[in-house]
């Protein structure tokens, strides 16, 4: 089980267009819809918003990890997006977010999948991991960094 089962270059957007929280969530979910991972956009957007209402997934240090568990998700996947300007994501440290990971998993998920996602989450805590993502120049670079997890 490798990281590239969840993410590939098509799921990486190096420059997000959105300027605020709601639209960046939608923009990230659109990536999933385009790649056929999400079958019902409305449903997934709603689930993501519900999760944010319970507590923001803007975990600080410039990282946000919106996530959705839903039957409208066909397979466990991760989309990565970056904003060079930073977006106000209502973060816990009240600073703008630059790195976005949207994690989508079906209701019934294999433990192996969830373990990889847990590993990804763990890595986001490390400064050098985040820095290298901020400095990556292409989707290829990002994949390389993620594959090294």
């Amino acid at each position, binding site marked *: 089980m490798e990281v590239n089962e969840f993410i590939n270059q098509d799921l990486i957007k190096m420059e997000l267009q959105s300027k605020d929280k709601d639209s960046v969530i939608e923009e990230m979910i659109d990536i999933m819809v385009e790649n056929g991972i999400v079958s019902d956009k409305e449903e997934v957007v709603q689930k993501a918003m519900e999760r944010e209402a319970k507590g923001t997934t803007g975990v600080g240090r410039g990282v946000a990890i919106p996530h959705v568990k839903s039957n409208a998700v066909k397979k466990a996947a991760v989309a990565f997006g970056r904003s060079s300007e930073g977006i106000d994501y209502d973060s816990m440290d009240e600073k703008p977010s630059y790195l976005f990971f949207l994690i989508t998993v079906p209701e019934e998920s294999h433990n192996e999948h969830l373990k990889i996602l847990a590993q990804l989450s*763990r890595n986001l805590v490390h400064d050098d991991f985040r820095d290298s993502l901020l400095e990556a120049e292409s989707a290829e670079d990002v994949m390389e960094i993620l594959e090294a997890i």
Partner: protein
Amino acid sequence: MSDKKKIVAVTSCPTGIAHTYMASESLEEAAKKMNVDISVETQGSVGVENELSEQDIKEADAVIIAADTNVSHERFVGKYIEEVAVADAINDAEALINKALEGAEKGEVKEDVALEAQVEDEKAKRKQKRTGAYKHLMTGVSFMLPFVVAGGLAIAISFVFGIDAAEESGTLAAALMQIGGDAAFALMVPILAGYISFSIADRPGIAPGMIGGMMASQLEAGFLGGIIAGFLAGYVTQFLKEKISLPKNLEGLMPILVLPFLASLAVGLLMIYLIGPPVQAIMTGLESWLQGMTDANAALLGLILGAMMAFDMGGPVNKAAYTFGVGLLGSNIFAPMAAIMAAGMTPPLGLALATVLFKDRFTRQEIEAGKPAWVMGISFITEGAIPFAAADPIRVIPSIMTGSAVTGALSMLFGAGLRAPHGGIFVLPIPGVVTNLGLYALAIVAGTIVTALMLRITKPKLKNA
């Protein structure tokens, strides 16, 4: 070295995908930097990982719970607990660890509160243990019940064809007897023991439990022997499971090879050398004791025979009484046999009556089991009472013994005699088989009512009945 602080932590979040693990990582990272020992248990979507051991908790100076879900404090009684939202651990784990250690330093856990909580905890544990053994027993009984009912009814139907019809091979009656007696009833005790053991030790417990139960049958130790075998097998398997640790690549052998083999061996040997001899001794001892009593007071003999019939329903004590009665038939003495059969009928009959009259003292399953118990009772299939007795031996066995003793004594007093060694009410209408038929029936009815009343007294009301 010894002044290095130690912290245990639990992280958890509602979806259990991201925050749980980020918080865990942050805490571990910060602790490393601060030279603090830490163990973090994550309660996420994968389930509980890196579960804190009792040792971890005992050694910890402070506890951190970083969770947006409900994490139980029970394990951490007597420790200083710093409880925060999961986000706080991700944001500033260093500050959180400092806060927890400072709190612990100030000793914010009051000793008396901790002690009281500990006492409560201990009580709760003991209670849990009690319901534990009861739960194991109930699991075994509920798996055994269908075997008793199916087997008992098959045997009862075979009597309809005439009392000795089953002895002629090739007949339907013989087939029914084979289904009920040779198959279903033979499985009864092994199933009971197997599922008691399963309840204790999970799947690896089934094989040693059933094997132990089978040996209880072969040693003629009856269902009480089966209960012993089941608990023995369960706890032995559980013990081995905890004590034996194999290298990781051999772990797969544990549940299919190591545990079943070693536990079955241990239980089997224990059954043969520890349970077998006393059972044999009881049986032969009781038999010769009864032989000596042939001339004793008739009512007293009936009382004793009756109580013996009900004591273990197919175990050594019951067998001793039954063998005694059948032996006397050869000497043309018919009264003890009558007492024995009557006393063997009242346990299921009395229980069936009690489930009708005192519904609030039985589980729903038992009330259902009461219906086939009528049929088994009138057919002299004492085994019909086993599921009730196995579920609650301390109350049920004395109750049915009392009822059977009364029946046995009355039958002897009334001078009833019986020339057939089995058959229940199916033999009663056959001319010449029973002497003093009317009074004999009265003895059975009286014992049935006494049994039911005894159950009313001994069994407590169930809650939520």
